[in-house]
């Protein structure tokens, strides 16, 4: 492998990782933008998503790496898997908001944030108790197609992940910027009280933010499984923490910021592993985060949060 091949390969690795972090970071940012709440249950909504995806693919008879699909069956299975997973995690997110967080929304102090931490642990332990703590073999229905670019290898799964992440993020941008509900969301983020006075149903907007954010986390969970071919109850923590870092790095509350932040973290992880050592990955990621926050406290792209009146 030449140096150029190596850089290209680590770029491919980093962008794939980054796409996943970005999908997760969006959930943090959407909720924070509207409620100024850091939703720690998001970590494990992602993890639950990967398990829902695993069960859905299992239901199609895909077990381990034995069945490989192509063409229409593959597209169909993936479409159904994404729909089921995203609706399931979306509903889970809405449920958490409707039955738990709404009740503590107006409580002053960190009650809501602590609630999300509690919910996160409940999700983790429910999955642990029902499936066990060992790594599960995640089905891989993708054919082993790959392209050699010099010494670097671009696999079908990477292309697929980029396309899916791109479509989902494009859809989200369209939704936030061009639809009525998206407009209502932006208005609520700017000033919830004024939005309410203008006749916007703030509760509905908040539920939408939870649904969309959690559905994206679910999609992230499915992508994670397809990419790494495993899942376990502990996958939410590391990925969630890095995605949260990505959201803060890009400017929490800022939708494009979360996408770029995710990519940056992914690329840091890949290049750090190459240049320094994998053992130092977290040190590198969090040092860069600290540096950015010292010099740009509102993140790279500026932070968006409700106006405090």
């Amino acid at each position: 492998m030449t140096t150029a091949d190596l850089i290209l390969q680590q770029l491919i690795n980093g962008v794939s990782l980054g796409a996943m972090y970005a999908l997760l970071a969006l959930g943090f940012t959407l909720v924070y933008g509207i409620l100024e709440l850091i939703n720690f249950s998001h970590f494990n909504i992602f993890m639950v998503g990967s398990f829902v995806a695993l069960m859905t693919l299992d239901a199609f008879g895909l077990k381990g790496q034995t069945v490989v699909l192509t063409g229409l069956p593959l597209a169909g299975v993936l479409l159904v898997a994404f729909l089921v997973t995203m609706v399931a995690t979306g509903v889970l997110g809405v449920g958490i908001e409707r039955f738990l967080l709404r009740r503590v929304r107006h409580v002053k102090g960190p009650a809501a944030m602590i609630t999300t931490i509690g919910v996160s642990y409940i999700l983790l332990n429910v999955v642990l108790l029902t499936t066990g703590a060992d790594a599960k073999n995640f089905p891989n229905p993708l054919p082993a197609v790959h392209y050699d670019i010099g010494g670097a290898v671009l696999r079908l799964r990477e292309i697929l992940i980029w396309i899916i992440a791109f479509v989902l993020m494009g859809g989200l941008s369209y939704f936030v910027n061009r639809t009525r509900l998206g407009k209502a969301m932006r208005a609520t983020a700017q000033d919830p009280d004024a939005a309410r006075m203008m006749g916007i149903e703030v509760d509905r907007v908040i539920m939408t933010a939870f649904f969309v954010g959690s559905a994206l986390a679910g999609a992230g969970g499915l992508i994670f499984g397809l990419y790494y071919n495993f899942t376990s109850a502990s996958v939410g923590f590391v990925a969630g923490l890095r995605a949260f870092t990505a959201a803060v790095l890009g400017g929490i509350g800022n939708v494009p910021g979360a996408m770029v932040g995710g990519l940056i973290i992914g690329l840091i992880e890949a290049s750090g592993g190459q240049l320094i050592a994998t053992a130092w990955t977290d040190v590198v990621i969090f040092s860069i985060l600290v540096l950015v926050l010292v010099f740009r406290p509102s993140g790279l792209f500026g932070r968006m949060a409700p106006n405090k009146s």
Partner: protein
Amino acid sequence: MTVKLTRRSALMATAATAAAATLGVSGAEAADKVVKIALEMSFTGADATSALRAAQGAMMAIDEANESKAVKGVKFEYVKFDDGTATAGQYDPVQGATNARKMVSDRDIVASVGPQMSGVGKAMAPILSQGNLATITPASTNPDITDPKFAAQYRPAGKAIYFRTVATDAFQGPNMANFMADKLKVKSIFVLDDSGAYGVGLADAFQAQAEKKGIKILGRDRLDPKAADYSAILTKIKSLGADAMYYGGVGQAGVKLAKQSYEIIPNVIKAGGDGMFGSDLLTGVGFPAVEGWYATQASPHVVDDPKLGNWTKKYTEKYKMGPDDYTVTSYDAALIIIDAVKRLVAAGKPVTRDNVRDNIQSSKVSTLQGEVEFDEHGDLKNKVISVFQIKQDKTKPLDDPSSQYKYVGVAPTV
């Protein structure tokens, strides 16, 4: 000392005598002394199935001793302790320390089989030493625990209490380095560990001997077992053009490493220690990704020995799964404890922890792996490292280690 006879104890004594009389039980049998043996393994998490296979080995030995009344007037019981926790997803040394305290505080426990993991062993050893409770590990191979250099840390009370029916990583790592240099003709290698006590120690020992054998060490890195993505480091290994990769560690990082290395460095020789041996790995990684990995066991390979045919058959019938080599070492560990108690009873000595420990120390027991004797630190006198390679056998269950790991031979000693 006078015994105060309370109303309740008097009543119970009367009732017991009455029961014995009506059932016609002879005095000696009614008074069978219960001797408890603790089984300390990682029953929860990434290594659960290996833990079960090993624990069942000891359980079988104990059941057999009770059935054949191997020790007159003694009934053996086992108590299971689990050091795997759900939050760790694998073994947890803190839970191991808690278990050690529980074991020490139960006066009926005279010895223990375990732990499975070296990280747990390091946490347990000082507590067991203070409690004068001997344990025989069937699987933990980190050499520090029995190394006299660290005696102050791991056996503060002085006497050896940590015995093994396996060899240590001081042999497992270096012998495998010899094997890779001599038999596999490896010229360059990248060494990884999983940041655990066992993994780091094994990788260090391997690396030192590999260097001596003239294998070029291209690099050394450490994996976070909770992280999901090892593609950065694997791409680096690919770019360095390594002949081989050696991984010191257990299943949590191992499963992901095996999956991703199959994608990124399919043609590089991959090897690990006994942490890469077991059904958890076969099911977690799956074929074809797991194919071709080398793994070692720090014990002689006797499961396939025709002499053990009956034993293997009996085990498989009893537990509905095949044994592996650490089932054997665990069975052997229980045999040694039972033998220690037997010699005490025969000599008319009380079955105390101290006496059991002394008898384990002086053991000369014929076990499944041959005659076992310990040196003064608790290590086996006869140390053998067996090498295996994963080769799919479609006619057998894909999660059965004894049919999917092919025995390659004994690794050359240093």
